[in-house]
């Protein structure tokens, strides 16, 4: 469904953030992208919806090649890629509803969006999504009145109302507490399953990634070091991705966590 072919990004400073990354993601697969800070995780995600323009290589979403699109073509394709951000990236001075509806901007004309007169079907869908994440009563609150977990839920609604085929998720749980982090990850994965969405989730927390996803990609210095199921993340593999460290604790913790989740 999404195919990256030798995707490369070299920044103006000469830093090579991505080195010929080739990746194939089938329909409906939720994938975690792990790796140390600066490994190019964020760049990879942003090269897909071209918030960052890749230097070379191609990205295919379905049959459409994204890297060569004109600006109007790109806007049309961006509608099919919902993005969830680190630190939520809600427009803080807009209401929750406006933030969710901003996910429809690619579908409605300027004047409709300027006058906040979205089609009834969009408003209904926004309420359905907000209700799904338990925030329907917050619709008219300003985004900066919400807590971190609530904001990220609004961010999820904003991405889903685009009716995307793919979710690009950039560190969804950074700056959230452990419990909220799990709830957010669980919510994202549940919603992907419900809607048959593929997702790429950048994540720092290896244990959390192992808990929820079907496939893990390990990135180091802009190159893929590991590609496999979460069980394949052995101490050796983690050492090749992150460098030398005692990994037993991390992996054991995962098993404990899983028991705990099941017990809940």
């Amino acid at each position: 469904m999404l195919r990256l072919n030798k995707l490369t990004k070299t920044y103006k400073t000469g830093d090579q953030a991505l080195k010929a990354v080739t990746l194939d993601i089938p329909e409906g697969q939720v994938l975690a992208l792990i790796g140390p800070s600066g490994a190019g995780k964020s760049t990879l995600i942003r090269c897909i919806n071209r918030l960052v323009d890749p230097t070379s290589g191609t990205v295919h979403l379905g049959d459409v090649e994204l890297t060569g699109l004109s600006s109007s073509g790109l806007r049309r394709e961006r509608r099919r890629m919902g993005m969830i951000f680190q630190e939520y990236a809600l427009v803080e001075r807009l209401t929750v509803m406006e933030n969710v509806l901003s996910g429809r901007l690619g579908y409605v004309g300027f004047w409709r969006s300027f006058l906040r007169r979205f089609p009834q079907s969009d408003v209904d869908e926004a309420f359905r999504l907000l209700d799904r994440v338990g925030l329907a009563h917050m619709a008219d609150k300003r985004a900066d009145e919400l807590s971190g977990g609530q904001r990220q839920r609004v961010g999820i609604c904003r991405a889903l109302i685009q009716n995307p085929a793919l979710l690009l998720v950039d560190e969804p749980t950074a700056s959230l507490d452990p419990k909220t982090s799990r709830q957010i990850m669980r919510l994202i994965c549940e919603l992907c399953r419900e809607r048959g969405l593929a997702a790429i989730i950048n994540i720092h927390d290896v244990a959390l990634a192992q808990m929820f996803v079907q496939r893990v990609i390990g990135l180091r210095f802009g190159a893929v070091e590991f590609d496999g199921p979460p069980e394949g993340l052995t101490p050796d593999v983690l050492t090749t991705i992150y460098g030398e460290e005692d990994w037993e604790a991390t992996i054991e913790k995962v098993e404990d966590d899983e028991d705990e989740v099941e017990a809940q």
Partner: protein
Amino acid sequence: MSAADTEITMLIGKRWKKPPFIQRAWLRYGLLAGFVIYLIAAFLTIDVNWSRVYEGLERGKQFVLAFTNPDFTSRSSDIWSGMIESIVMTVASSVVGIAISIPIALGAARNIAPLPVYLICRSIIAISRALQEIIVAILLVAIFGFGPLAGFLTLSFASIGFLSKLLAEDIESMDRVQAEAIKASGARWTQWVNYGVQPQVMPRLIGLSIYRVDINFRESAILGLVGAGGIGATLNTSFDRYEYDTAAAILLIIIGIVMALEYISGVVRARVQ
């Protein structure tokens, strides 16, 4: 390990001082000495004619005393019409100035506009800011003749430079990620500005606009001196006739209105956070 140990023993018990802003000692003290010498030299060039000051004190006293006895009545119709003219000039020039400065501010923000647009908009701002109101007013009075039209155009022109520059700077320092999130949804440029940029800079825009209304009103009192209409013309006439009591009345009204605007702007800015 031993190297680190010796280093820490050397540091312990030593006084710590903030590193100086200018590293080179001779440059640091040189600049300070130069500044002091310049200050002394500058004071020495001030040439005061004390006997003239002594004479002038009497006239100053009359002027100040007039404030204890302002005359609102004998020229009340002149004051009234001048005040209305000033207010009309202020409101009209502020509305036009703000309306024009918003698109220029968007063009003058480097994180939004492409380089050619940026350069054009920045030049417009530079021209508007370089030309002082009085100079523009004299030019426009020469073109359009005496009266409030010249004043209105002057104030609109000056508002553009002021508002565009400060608004553009606010746009440049906005949170990029919020705007990025809007862009990622497939929004077109105008929608992106409306959803991603505008909410972030709105409090600043409102605050600056009110402040500019305030400035425009005060300037409208000055522009009358060069014939560009408004209360300034009335004020000028009363000075020419040595009617300090009428001038005092006008100044008191201006002070009152500026204070009222100050109060309103405080209330409004507290509301839009």
